[in-house]
């Protein structure tokens, strides 16, 4: 199941992406490279040797988690797969896809606040409750959590700074506020884990816990700084457009 989900499926998605990009003709090489990097991160994070390390060492788990939950989704999102998809299908199909985003439950799901709760909120649940201990002994749950963090990470970074069309996305101020709160919440979680020795009951010595928490703090910070750069890039592009009078302010 792991090989199928984290190696074959991502590579199939990448192949479809590259094929569509080639057929498109004018597709940016930078976007393709970013998307490929995201897929590569997922595949590398789930290599048997990394899996083995993650299983025995909390630091390994944390680095795997950072790759799957933060850096891979960011790189995938910057690859703008949604735009490529809409450009590759017929106009009718594209309209129907965008119409999906208008459905009330989908609109709630893709709201930045929901996305932040699913992503950062789930990390609080995983590391501060006994869930981490349960997951360590349940391979199916383990895989499901990895899938959850890839998807939630994608949803979150896309809802904040996705280049893909997002007609119902809240304004820049709301997104900046959510990004701010989520970054602070992530930093706080890293420090709580460091200071109060979470996750509990894992049998990991305190030094191991602390260095894993440090990885989470600095790694998470770097990923969120990258996301903030992507966000401000959108903000400033809009400022320029407004200043040039191309779009009504």
């Amino acid at each position, binding site marked *: 199941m792991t090989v199928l989900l984290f190696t074959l499926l991502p590579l199939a998605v990448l192949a479809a992406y590259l094929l569509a990009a080639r057929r498109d003709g004018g597709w940016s090489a930078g976007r393709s490279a970013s998307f490929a990097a995201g897929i590569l991160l997922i595949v590398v994070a789930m290599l048997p040797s990394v899996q083995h390390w993650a299983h025995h060492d909390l630091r390994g788990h944390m680095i795997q988690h950072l790759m799957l939950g933060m850096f891979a989704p960011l790189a995938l999102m910057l690859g703008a797969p949604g735009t490529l998809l809409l450009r590759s299908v017929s106009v009718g199909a594209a309209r129907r896809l965008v119409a999906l985003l208008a459905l009330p439950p989908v609109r709630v799901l893709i709201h930045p606040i929901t996305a932040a709760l699913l992503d950062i909120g789930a990390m609080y649940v995983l590391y501060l409750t006994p869930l981490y201990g349960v997951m360590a002994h349940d391979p199916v749950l383990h895989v499901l959590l990895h899938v959850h963090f890839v998807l939630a990470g994608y949803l979150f970074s896309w809802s904040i700074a996705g280049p893909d069309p997002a007609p119902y996305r809240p304004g820049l101020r709301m997104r900046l506020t959510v990004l*701010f709160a989520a*970054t*602070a919440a992530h*930093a*706080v979680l890293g420090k709580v884990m460091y200071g109060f020795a979470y996750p509990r009951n894992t049998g990991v010595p305190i030094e191991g816990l602390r260095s894993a928490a440090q990885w989470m703090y600095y790694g998470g910070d770097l990923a969120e700084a990258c996301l*903030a750069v992507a966000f*401000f*890039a959108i903000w400033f592009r809009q400022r320029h457009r407004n200043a040039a009078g191309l779009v009504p302010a």
Partner: protein
Amino acid sequence: MERTNSRRSLIATLPLGIGLMAAVDEVVFHQILRWHHFFDWSTPAFGIVSDGILHTMELMLFILGAFLVAEVRRVLVPRAAWAGLFLGMGGFQVFDGVIDHKVLRLHQIRQVENLWLYDTVWIAAGVALLLVGFGLARRA
């Protein structure tokens, strides 16, 4: 035109100055010396949360400042840009020293007897930075 460029250069580095001073405060006084946290209401949990917020604020201000500088890079007036940096640093320092420490009493610099000395040095350092900033801004 020249005045607008000066103003834009100054505004661009202002968030960098604020973020830089906040980072110095966070790294040196909160983390290395551990004299205080942003909110010192005596629980470590509160200290952790408030420092997390302070840290995020710095990060965002740095990135915002970097974008603002990139935007004005072709017409940047160096002296005005330095003025913005100093004004940002001094502004944060004085705001922290007067409003956070004394008016709101969120935290003190250090829990010691001769606190007034710490306060004086803290606020005087901020005022000195502000004066450098004003001096540069006037000549820009």
